[in-house]
């Protein structure tokens, strides 16, 4: 009787502990998304009212005047991301193909590890590296230097996504290709890689979303530009750097515009991420 009662009271204590633990864990999980909620709330509250037609179409107004917009920064960011993709996508995809299809043994292990390390290098270090490699020798800040530093950030993301996706392709698919009398490189490119194209595209989009908001690597490379410029050998404006410049300025009107730009940037990155997820879900649905 005593044993049974003791055990029953243990049961009761255990249930209480369980419920307290669960509620605590749940609240902690909720707290983790609080910053996200605040960021959104703030950016929308401050940024949305500041958005107007001028923001998209006008150049920055001369210092001291109000008005003007971010047209040069929007175009600059687009050009930087385009050039970074031109460099980073083929580079990253090739590296991923090598690691998945041909990389064996120690060399591949070292390469894979190095790519992971590259992914975790702070972006400001990438900026300084590009400064030393491109800006110093050319004696000039330039859009191309900015694009290279963004590409260096994209490469590991794209390479590892590509590798992981190609590894999902069963080996008998490759053997079927070889069995048809197709050379290995054709099997790799035209069957294995092509079959994973949707997934790789999502990896590319995530990499673009990642670099779209990068500021640090652009500070020493693309610098910024208050005028309209799409020359790749000249300093160029970009959304994040211009946000930074405007946010630390003493002018109320610039702060307003920085919020507007932040809002645009958040919407851009968010929609890239959401599109990617939608595509991924569609791909998953098809293969299952």
């Amino acid at each position, binding site marked *: 009787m005593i044993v049974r009662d003791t055990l029953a009271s243990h049961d009761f204590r255990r249930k209480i502990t369980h419920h307290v633990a669960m509620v605590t864990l749940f609240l902690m999980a909720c707290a983790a998304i609080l910053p996200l909620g605040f960021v959104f709330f703030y950016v929308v509250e401050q940024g949305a009212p500041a958005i107007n037609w001028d923001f998209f179409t006008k150049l920055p107004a001369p210092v001291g005047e109000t008005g003007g917009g971010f047209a040069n920064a929007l175009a600059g960011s687009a050009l930087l991301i385009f050039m970074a993709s031109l460099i980073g996508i083929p580079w990253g995809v090739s590296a991923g193909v090598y690691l998945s299809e041909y990389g064996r043994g120690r060399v591949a292990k070292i390469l894979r590890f190095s790519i992971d390390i590259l992914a975790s290098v702070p972006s400001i270090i990438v900026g300084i590296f590009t400064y030393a490699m491109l800006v110093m020798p050319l004696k000039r800040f330039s859009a191309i230097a900015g694009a290279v530093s963004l590409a260096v950030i994209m490469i590991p993301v794209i390479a590892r996504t590509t590798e992981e996706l190609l590894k999902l392709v069963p080996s008998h698919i490759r053997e079927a290709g*070889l069995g*048809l009398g*197709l050379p290995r490189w054709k099997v790799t490119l035209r069957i294995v890689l092509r079959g994973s194209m949707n997934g790789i595209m999502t990896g590319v989009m995530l990499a673009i979303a990642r670099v779209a908001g990068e500021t640090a690597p652009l500070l020493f490379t693309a610098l910024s530009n208050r005028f309209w410029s799409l020359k790749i050998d000249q300093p160029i404006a970009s959304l994040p750097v211009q946000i930074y410049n405007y946010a630390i300025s003493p002018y109320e009107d610039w702060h307003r515009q920085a919020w507007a730009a932040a809002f645009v940037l958040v919407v851009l990155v968010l929609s890239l991420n959401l599109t990617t997820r939608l595509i991924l879900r569609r791909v998953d649905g098809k293969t299952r």
Partner: protein
Amino acid sequence: MSGIVANPYILEVEKLNAWFGQNHAVKAIDLNVVPHTVTALIGPSGCGKSTFLRCLNRLHEEVPGARVSGQVMLQGDNIYDPGKDPVAVRRQIGMVFQKANPFPALSVYGNVAVGLTLAGIRKRSILDEVVERSLRHAALWDEVKDKLKAPGTSLSGGQQQRLCIARALAVSPPVLLMDEPTSALDPISTAKIEELVLELKKEVTVIMVTHNMQQAARVSDWTAFFLLGESVEFAETRKLFTTPQDSRTEQYITGRFG
């Protein structure tokens, strides 16, 4: 050399050995194959029959650490000649796998045509003709002729396996290897594939690995019984199943081990 007498064999395997690293998986196999016949390779799991099959189109060597010795004469020509390109060999000796594996992101049509399109043949009229002929040979045409544009992976399991057969036939290999082609299929799809194999004999020479002794008895003309990497007995199917010469063969086909 008597050039007058035609070689009665399409494939002559002599002292074929295969290894995975240290593991000697296939041991000194000799086997001759008569054209337009079906040869079945039977034996318990791990007896080396699949590895042997994969040596016949030089696919075994694609596995890291794999090694082969011996020779395989295809129509009098050693496929393991140092100057031979494995890619060219594989065009001559097609293969169908255990699991149906249509290429993802390719349509039914694209899957059948891929051996040609990736070899640079672009002419629509040729492709159309080959695709239809191959699908007819694979007894799939009537079922898919209205959905040639659909993804290959959208077909049923049995249809996918016949699609893979059509894909292999499209490059018109004289020899077709089949590695347990029905082991993942239901009985009805299996019956269709077996019927198809009997039809295919008219066009190609088939060598088939099977786990199913009834299947070997139903479709093959010749049967080889493999055990522990060796070919224990190779004979006409009827002989092998009615009057096996080796006691191990007899024990296996009567179900006493394996």
